[in-house]
């Protein structure tokens, strides 16, 4: 083979490789652009993402597994917040979980809305801990619950000599010098208690955690209309991942890196909805579920977040 000929062949191969590279990059870009492939997800699955490297932070969110219900514990350097409790039956396990962390005081107890799978366990929890403020939504007279569950909750607040703090949109609770909890909803009167859910954002440094309670599309729409600051790193999806929550427009505004669904295995309501899960996966690189992973603990150092799971689901 003459030297001249070799150079020509080399050039042809290089040109071919270059063309191939351009095609591959274009195809990859197109797949990403049209949301067909989420590379962060792919990298995360093959272990190339550092998102789940344990973070040594002084802030944690515990999405406590209470079966079909909601219960989240926020532990900052100075203060603790409990959002919901699961059902009445869940109270003993929730109490021992909180005690196992060495916590004796709950500075803020938020009952997102008066349904049993959210506030059922609160009376026993209120009795068991030193309590700061109990925050609840102010529901219209027409929608005020008549259940024993709600009476028990009110009586527990009364018996402890506490008051009920109405959820006020825009109100901020400082949890430590780096952490604040802000109430974002309810923004309106509704004809369903789910939409009265207290929606709150907890910001720790650069990390943001959005808690939706059982808020559904009506509340999501109001949050969007009010231009509420809902952009978050971690979304506790509304209403156990039902199809009536987590609309595309809402998810697009939240753009959560991670989403958590609090849901019981084999529940009677077919939660979570496969449609809602697919919508969430368009925006989140991972979705964690208490029915699969058990209690989910998210730790943050104000910049990085990591997750730990009770079980590998």
């Amino acid at each position: 083979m003459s030297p001249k000929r070799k150079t020509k062949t080399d050039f042809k191969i290089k040109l071919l490789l270059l063309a191939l590279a351009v095609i591959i990059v274009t195809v990859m870009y197109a797949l990403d652009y049209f949301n067909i492939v989420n590379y962060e997800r792919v990298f995360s699955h093959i272990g190339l993402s550092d998102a789940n490297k344990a973070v040594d932070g002084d802030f944690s969110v515990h999405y406590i597994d209470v079966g079909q219900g909601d219960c989240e514990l926020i532990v900052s350097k100075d203060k603790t917040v409990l959002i919901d409790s699961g059902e009445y039956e869940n109270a003993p396990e929730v109490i021992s979980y909180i005690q196992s962390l060495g916590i004796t005081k709950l500075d803020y107890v938020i009952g997102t809305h008066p349904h049993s799978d959210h506030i059922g366990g609160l009376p026993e929890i209120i009795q068991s801990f030193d309590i700061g403020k109990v925050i609840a939504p102010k529901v219209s007279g027409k929608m005020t619950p008549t259940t024993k569950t709600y009476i028990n909750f009110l009586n527990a607040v009364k018996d402890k000599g506490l008051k009920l703090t109405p959820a006020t949109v825009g109100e901020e609770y400082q949890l430590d010098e780096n952490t604040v909890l802000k109430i974002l909803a309810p923004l309106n009167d509704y004809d369903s208690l789910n939409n009265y859910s207290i929606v709150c954002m907890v910001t720790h440094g650069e990390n943001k955690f959005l808690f939706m309670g059982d808020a559904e599309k009506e509340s999501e729409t109001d949050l969007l209309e009010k231009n509420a600051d809902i952009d978050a790193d971690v979304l506790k999806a509304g209403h156990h991942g039902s199809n009536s929550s987590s609309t595309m427009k809402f998810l697009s505004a939240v753009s959560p890196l991670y989403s958590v669904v609090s849901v019981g295995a084999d529940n009677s309501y077919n939660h979570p909805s496969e449609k809602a899960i697919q919508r969430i996966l368009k925006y989140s690189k991972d979705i964690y579920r208490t029915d699969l992973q058990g209690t989910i603990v998210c730790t943050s150092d104000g910049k990085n977040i990591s997750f730990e799971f009770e079980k590998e689901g």
Partner: protein
Amino acid sequence: MFIIERFEDEKAVLENESGEHLVIIRKNLPHNAKEGDCLIFKNGVYSVDSVLTKKRKEEIIRLQDSLWG
């Protein structure tokens, strides 16, 4: 007596007098039944007891409103 605790799509969660729950098909309730309504179950049929609902609601609102701080 039952109380409508909540609706979950096509299902309704009822609370009985002991505070226990049962899940029924929503269409077995009167079509105008709302969350918080007290129900009477007679001869296999649920009907809304609006007098009891109103009385209970008023009592609970009184307790609730004494607690807002």
